[in-house]
């Protein structure tokens, strides 16, 4: 009987599997896991490995000197990077429009007229149609009194734009309501003496006239050429509860594309450039055309170019440290369409626009790892035999096959943090594997940027847990509608907010988005990364690219612990008649510990 521990050094996580091997095969005693220290496959991993081995031993009540050997996988360094390139920008010049959703616009309807400063209302002639513009410091009672007085004199004040959060206060004090848009921060920039229109929709509705090119054309009597120029204004106002359009002579809204640089994908036979602003679909189509990818470069000065260079440099450095001399070529990229909420340049009310962006994940992976240094240091740290061996993919398959209900042909999908790896073991024992860029970390990044959180921790929490909304100080409603009660009142900050119920308790999501929007972003990020990558990976390992040839798909890795990703993947491959589910390594470990288990298994098989 020999005591063995298999150790899998992953990019994010180092896992151990402890077993006693005798003539009847291995008897598993348990496992452990910890964060990987340093770049996978380098000597920096030693502290993590030592920790995980000791934890596995002490959990099983065994002592370090009973250990016969540590089995380590051939951990090839993987460096992955993420970058985001914004490809559109909304710019408002000459204050042509204000379209925003203040919490409290007032007086539904449409008003048109010439913009007039509040102080100048008294100078307007009866019969004039005007839009009143009230800046900072105008009290709401004075504003209402002034507007009412002007109307009494026959001045048609048909709408107002105000700086303070006063719209309802003003409208409530008028004999007949007019549409008023408030919270316009830079109201002093609204051009005066210009034709303008103010529209406020009923609660629950959005503006109809100012979001319609022909509506604006009707109001301002525009000819077809002018209408064409104003069309982007209308489009930008779609979906707003309230809007103001001021017709300035040279006013213009540009919904412009930012030149985002070129990505060059280098295959064995071809070298194809593709503009990042062409979008993810085009980039991935170009990638398919050059497959297998030999390398990729990005235009200098762009985020994507910088990211690819950083990834390559980091790998070169890792390799030079260990005296290896391989080239650090980009092995895969994944492009994903996304959007980023961004403050509109030239906006008067702090408007945000959702700009289109492309997120790119890239990966460098070496074929041969500098494992000798790692093994040597490990040997002296633990004072025990260390065997390096077993190709990672082979070991993953062996481990996955300990899942009840599986057999070859079997495909493993390892959903990690930086990469999505797949391996297929055919009936005759051959294993094909593929390593793709983009996994859990990209999902977190997409959630972070699409919601404009700028907080990776919150984004990670959102990724991993269901949402809820705090409906009172004492209960939240979960995203599936169930209510949960608390004895202690929730903090005021949580009130009416979207919260996430993570391991560390409840945490508010710092966003104005409704729960459903946050949920949609979360699910679409998972879909865009993992469903796309799972299909890409399986198609590349399946015989002839045909998924039907795969009997069983076992989903493994940290992201397989997710509460919805495995279901999404199962749904996506269901049509191909494949049995797909989350792995349950050794019938007990769930989707974790496959490689570590495979190492023990293989060693036991060899020594028997």
């Amino acid at each position, binding site marked *: 009987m020999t005591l063995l521990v298999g150790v899998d050094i992953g990019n994010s996580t180092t896992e151990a599997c402890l077993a006693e091997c005798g003539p009847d095969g291995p008897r598993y005693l348990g496992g452990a896991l910890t964060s990987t220290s340093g770049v996978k496959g380098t000597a920096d991993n030693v502290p993590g490995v030592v920790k995980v081995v000791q934890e596995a031993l002490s959990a099983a009540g065994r002592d370090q000197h009973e250990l016969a050997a540590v089995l380590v996988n051939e951990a090839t360094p993987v460096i992955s990077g993420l970058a985001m390139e914004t490809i559109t920008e909304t710019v408002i010049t000459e204050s042509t429009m204000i379209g925003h959703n203040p919490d409290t616009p007032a007086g539904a309807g449409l008003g048109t007229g010439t913009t007039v400063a509040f102080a100048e209302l008294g100078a307007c002639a009866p019969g004039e149609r005007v839009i009143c513009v009230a800046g900072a410091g105008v009290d709401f009672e004075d504003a209402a009194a002034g507007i009412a007085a002007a109307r009494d004199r026959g001045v048609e004040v048909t709408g107002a734009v105000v700086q303070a959060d006063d719209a309802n206060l003003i409208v409530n004090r008028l004999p007949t309501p007019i549409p008023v848009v408030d919270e316009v921060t830079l109201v002093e920039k609204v051009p005066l003496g210009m034709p303008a229109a103010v529209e406020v929709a009923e609660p629950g509705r959005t503006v109809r006239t100012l979001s319609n090119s022909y509506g604006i054309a009707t109001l301002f009597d525009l000819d077809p050429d002018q209408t064409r120029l104003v069309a982007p204004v209308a489009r930008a106002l779609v979906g707003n509860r309230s809007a103001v359009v001021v017709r300035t002579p040279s006013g213009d809204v540009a919904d412009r594309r930012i030149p985002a640089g070129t990505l060059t994908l280098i295959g064995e036979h071809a070298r194809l450039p593709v503009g990042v602003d062409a979008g993810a679909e085009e980039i991935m189509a170009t990638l398919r055309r050059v497959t297998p990818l030999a390398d990729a470069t990005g235009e200098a000065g762009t985020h994507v170019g910088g990211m690819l260079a950083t990834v390559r440099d980091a790998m070169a450095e890792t390799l030079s440290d260990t005296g290896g001399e391989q080239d650090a070529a980009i092995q895969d990229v994944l492009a994903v369409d996304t959007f980023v909420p961004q403050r509109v340049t030239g906006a008067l009310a702090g408007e945000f626009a959702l700009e289109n962006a492309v997120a790119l994940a890239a990966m460098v992976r070496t074929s041969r790892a500098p494992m000798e240094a790692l093994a040597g240091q490990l040997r002296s740290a633990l004072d025990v035999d260390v065997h390096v061996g077993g190709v990672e993919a082979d070991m993953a398959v062996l481990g996955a096959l300990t899942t009840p209900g599986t057999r070859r042909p079997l495909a493993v999908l390892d959903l990690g943090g930086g990469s999505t790896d797949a391996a297929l073991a055919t009936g005759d024992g051959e294993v094909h594997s593929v390593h793709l860029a983009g996994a859990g970390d990209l999902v977190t990044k997409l959630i972070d940027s699409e919601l404009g959180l700028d907080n990776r921790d919150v984004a990670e929490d959102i990724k991993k847990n269901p949402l809820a909304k705090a409906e009172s100080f004492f209960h939240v409603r979960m995203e599936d509608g169930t209510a949960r009660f608390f004895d202690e009142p929730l903090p*005021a900050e949580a009130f009416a907010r979207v919260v996430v119920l993570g391991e560390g308790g409840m945490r508010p999501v710092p966003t*104005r988005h409704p729960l459903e929007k946050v949920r949609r972003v979360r699910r679409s990020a998972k879909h865009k990364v993992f469903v796309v990558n799972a299909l890409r990976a399986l198609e590349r390992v399946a015989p002839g690219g045909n998924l039907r040839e795969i009997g069983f798909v076992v989903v493994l890795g940290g992201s397989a612990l997710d509460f919805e990703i495995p279901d999404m993947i199962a749904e996506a491959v269901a049509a191909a008649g494949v049995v797909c589910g989350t792995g349950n390594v050794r019938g007990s470990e769930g989707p974790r510990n496959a490689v570590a288990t495979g190492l023990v298994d293989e060693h036991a098989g060899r020594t028997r």
Partner: protein
Amino acid sequence: MRELLAGLEEEGVPVRLASGTPTGGAATSPADSGEAATAVELAHAAARASPLDVGVGIDVEGRVCVHHAKRPADRPVVTTDATRARWCGHNAARLVVGLPLKEPPEQLEETWPQH
């Protein structure tokens, strides 16, 4: 007081009368109604009296407090001074309407521990 009512009105909370004072759905207890009482005590009493469970208190020292009937008496939602009365009005209304409170939470009595 005017600013407080303005905040309530702007949020469109339907106006009701409570203890003879026009309020935006939340009962307000003006300072003169209880001599030694603090804003917090007044606010909690007002909240308990209010059919909408939200109360605002202003004490002799000019402190303004927003409270909710179901919170413990000593743990109000907001306590601040009269210069922020308008903001208190908004937030009292938002408690009624079920909207997140306005502006940065530095003024809130209880916030989340920073993770």
